[in-house]
C-alpha cells in the first residue's frame, strides 16, 4: 500500500509540469492595494485654535511699532525745541 502511494507521488511529480511564476513577485498586484476611505472634515474642526501669525508678519509689525514710536518722539522733541526758541526770542525783545 505504502509503495503504491510513493509510486503515485513520483509519477505525479514526473508527469505534471507546474512551475513557480517568478515574474509575479517583481510586479505590483492591484488587488493587494487596500481602498482608502474618502477625505472628510473632522467633527471638531471648529474647536481647533486659530493659526498663529507667521514670523515675517510679527517682525514687520514690530518694525512698524518701532518706527511709529520714533516718529512720535522726534515730533515731541521738535515741538519742545520750537517752543523754547520762541520763548527766548520773546525774552530778548522784552529786554
Amino acid at each position, binding site marked *: 500500500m505504502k509503495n503504491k502511494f510513493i509510486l503515485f507521488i513520483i509519477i505525479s511529480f514526473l508527469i*505534471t509540469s507546474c*512551475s513557480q511564476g517568478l515574474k509575479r513577485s517583481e510586479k505590483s498586484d492591484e488587488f493587494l492595494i487596500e481602498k482608502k476611505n474618502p477625505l472628510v472634515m473632522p467633527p471638531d474642526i471648529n474647536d481647533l485654535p486659530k493659526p498663529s501669525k507667521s514670523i515675517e508678519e510679527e517682525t514687520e509689525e514690530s518694525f512698524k511699532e518701532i518706527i511709529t514710536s520714533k516718529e512720535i518722539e522726534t515730533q515731541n522733541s521738535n515741538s519742545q525745541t520750537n517752543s523754547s526758541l520762541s520763548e527766548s526770542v520773546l525774552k530778548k525783545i522784552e529786554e
Partner: protein
Amino acid sequence: MVKKQFILNFIIIFFIFFLDRITKNYILNLAENQGIIDITINPFLNIILVWNSGIGFGLLQFDENIIYNLITVLIVIVNIIIIYLIFNSEKLHKILFSMILGGSLGNLYDRIYYNSVPDFIDLNYNGYHWFVFNVADIFISLGIIALIFLELFIKTKNEK
C-alpha cells in the same frame, strides 16, 4: 464490453489531450500577438505564461540537454507503464489512468515540440501564489488524488 471500455478510455485520453492543446495554443497565440501574457481574471485567478523545462513544482530545471533528455525518456517510460496499467486494471481505475495518460501526453508533446511546457493558470490568495499550472496538470492531479482515495477507502472496505 471490452471494446466499449477501450473506446471510452480512448475518448477520455483524446478529449483531455485536445482540451489541453486548445488552451495551450490559445495562450501561445495570445503571447505571439501581445508579447507578454499577464491577464487578471479575478482577485484569485491570473493568466500568466511561464515555461517549465523541468518536472512538477519547477523541480529539475537544468540547462544541460543530457539531463533534460533523460527526464523525457523517463516520462516516456512512465507513460508506457500507465498504458500497461490501463489494460490491466479494474473499470474505475482504467478511467482514472486514462485521465492521467491524457494529461501526461499533453505535457510530453510540449516537452518534445517546444523543449519546455507552457504553464499559465496562476491561483493566488492575498499575495500567496500557488504553482502556475496548465489544464493537463489539473487532470493528472485529479486522477492521482482519486486513485489515492480509491486505494485508501475502497480497498480497506473490501479488506474488512
